[in-house]
């Protein structure tokens, strides 16, 4: 039964009030912009507490089944709640991997036990999730992953390492792809997918410093780490299939996410507003003709993206290449964000060359944002790989 317009409106008002009243105070330290940059304990605890509070109030996982800890309500309500969060510019929910890809994956492909065990902790942020896909020698070419998993009784023994593990130091579980066989004809056939506990003996995440000088991700070492055989998801050798399903959730091509904000929102209006405050050669940047024309192009491009979301709901307009809009979401939004941040530096005159600190415009957040924006264009499959995927799957071009 679907809710009436009046009921939806009602709910929106109620959510609006809750977020206005409960928006957490700005901390006296800098917050990360996405889950890929959580680099200190204070940042982590601040964000985790926030997610727990949002979950208790019932504004995340609203459409996930009630029996596993979700709200059991309509997706439209979650969409409204997420919109209200964006409007109030509240912090993002840090358990991004759990909420947006591990969780939906478990709900769609997992066993009853797996759903019972994992879903509630994902929503409440009690159990943080990380992702062990990339390896030092195999990133874009994920199918060649070499980290080994050997079955020994009712356990698997893991050896090798994973890298660029976001939230690695805080996670309780990892979605892991590891090689269970080298015998197979295809490199993909030897891979298996695990819901691996991070507290097992022999698992060691070591933080790596990012280009900004802050911390944010880890290299995770496995030294004869023993994990229960029950953490295998699906069957041995099905790892590639499960990993691909995960990536579809990750890139937003498939619905079912728990909702809520996954990253600090940056809109083109923030850039326009910055251009009003900053100066180039003594005049407001916004009066500079070069700045104006670039702003118009960026506004047009950000409008592209918002119109595409509106259009993707109209199936009659998805004619020749129906998957194009949905499959390109990550590429379009991450590249636009990178260019917006890059452009923001050009609005600051010589101050463009400052970095984090009180002398810099807005404390140096634009410089930091630009450097951090590569998380979107590299993480989750680089923009170049996205072009390959869209070219091959949407346009049918040969590999």
């Amino acid at each position: 039964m679907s809710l009436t317009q009046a009921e939806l409106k009602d709910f929106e008002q109620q959510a609006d009030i809750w977020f206005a009243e409960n928006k957490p105070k700005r901390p006296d330290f800098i917050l990360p912009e996405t889950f890929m940059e959580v680099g200190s304990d204070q940042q982590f605890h601040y964000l985790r507490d926030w997610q727990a509070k949002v979950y208790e109030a019932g504004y995340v996982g609203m459409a996930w089944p009630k029996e596993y800890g979700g709200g059991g309500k309509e997706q439209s309500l979650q969409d409204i709640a997420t919109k209200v969060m964006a409007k109030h510019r509240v912090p993002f929910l840090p358990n991004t991997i759990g909420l947006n890809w591990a969780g939906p994956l478990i709900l769609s492909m997992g066993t009853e036990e797996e759903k019972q065990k994992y879903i509630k902790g994902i929503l409440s942020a009690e159990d943080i999730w990380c992702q062990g896909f990339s390896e030092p020698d195999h990133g874009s070419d994920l199918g060649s992953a070499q980290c080994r998993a050997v079955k020994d009784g009712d356990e698997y023994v893991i050896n090798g390492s994973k890298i660029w593990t976001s939230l690695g130091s805080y996670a309780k579980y990892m979605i892991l792809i590891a090689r269970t066989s080298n015998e197979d004809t295809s490199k993909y056939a030897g891979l298996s997918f695990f819901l691996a506990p991070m507290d097992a003996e022999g698992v060691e995440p070591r933080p790596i410093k990012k280009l900004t000088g802050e911390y944010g991700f880890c290299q995770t070492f496995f030294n004869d780490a023993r994990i229960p055989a029950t953490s295998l998801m699906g069957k041995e050798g099905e790892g590639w299939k499960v990993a691909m399903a995960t990536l579809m959730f990750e890139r937003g091509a498939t619905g079912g996410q728990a909702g809520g904000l996954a990253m600090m929102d940056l809109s083109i209006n923030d850039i326009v507003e910055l251009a009003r405050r900053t100066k180039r050669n003594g005049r407001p940047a916004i009066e500079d003709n070069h700045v104006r024309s670039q702003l118009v192009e960026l506004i047009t491009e950000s409008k592209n993206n918002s119109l595409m979301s509106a259009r993707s709901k109209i199936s009659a307009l998805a004619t020749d290449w129906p998957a194009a809009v949905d499959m390109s979401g990550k590429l379009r939004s991450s590249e636009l964000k990178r260019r917006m941040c890059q452009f923001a530096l050009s609005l600051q005159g010589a101050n463009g060359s400052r970095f984090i600190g009180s002398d810099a415009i807005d404390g140096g957040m634009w410089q930091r944002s630009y450097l951090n924006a590569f998380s979107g264009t590299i993480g989750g499959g680089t923009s170049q790989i996205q072009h390959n995927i869209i070219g091959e799957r949407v346009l049918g071009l040969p590999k």
Partner: protein
Amino acid sequence: MSIIDFSEEQSMLLETANQFCRENSTISVVRTQIDKEESVDAELWSRIVELGWLGVSIPETYGGLGMGLAGAVPIVESMGKYLMGSPYTSCILTAEVILSCASEEQKNQWLPKIIEGSVATTALTEEDGNWRLEEISSRAEKDGKNLVLTGSKCFVMDGPMASLYVVSVIYEGKPRLVFATGDQVTAGRLTRENVIDETRRSYRLELDGLVIPESQLLQGADFSRIEVAAMLMLVAEMSGGLSGVLHVIIDYLTTRKQFDKYIGSYQSLKHPTVQILLSQEACRSHLYHAATQITENSADAVAAIRMAKAQGAEAFAFAGDRAVQFHGGFGFTYECDAQLFLRRALWCQYQFGDSAYHNELLAPLLLNEVV
């Protein structure tokens, strides 16, 4: 107000129009027509008329379907995809001028004729190529109960086919619009112009000494509305053209081999092709958004259509340019279809304002009122 409205009716029109144009405007038909005198075959035009397409945008009171300009968009988009030439967009644009600027009597006189297939066209641009429709030098002087016109007009589409022309002139110091009928515009006044898009029939119109009754002066002169409607028609064509040229590119990339591999496997061809796909999707989104805003008379309509025109024209010109390059030596030939799209894209870019022009006008619109 919705961001994008796409009704059941529009959706049906899109399907019918796409099928009609695919069947009736194959590349060989397009190429045959290029060598003919007119932009469209008479028999094909009468079938378009029979489908009722000339009346989609015209209110029911005058015999139309009452869908507003948004009704014409799926049709023009489909024509653009298959490079179909015809006076269709000129007729829709002229009907829009009549609806926004003419008297009730003139509407009753002309709109039903347009619906029945009488060709109507506009004469707005002049030799200097100025895009500001009110900056013109052609004039009308009063002489008793008549007006005497002087000057000349360019880019008058399908001139010899037309039975009605809407001409912009300076009258009593202000830019105004007048009707000139097919009888009044004698054959000697029209000379064919050689234009980059060979599917089009463009004419120069000599006005010197043309005498028309004063009653043919239109009461209104809403140049902004005319510009908006003209841009919408062009963007619809560009959106269709983008998907047409993308099909041409993909066909070649998946059939031509070099170094034992399909050339589509090379990333220096594959990645720009994906960019073209995304720009095509963006153009289509802007198009139907602008169509919605224009039909609903929203305050954002002008910004929406300028954005659409600026974005779409760049995208289409890039796609045409790459289409030629990606065909190698064959791309350099007249026989390769890439040139048809590139030349169409260049036409669309330079009619009714190029991207740089619209971006400049957009700045105050977008920066004062934060979007």
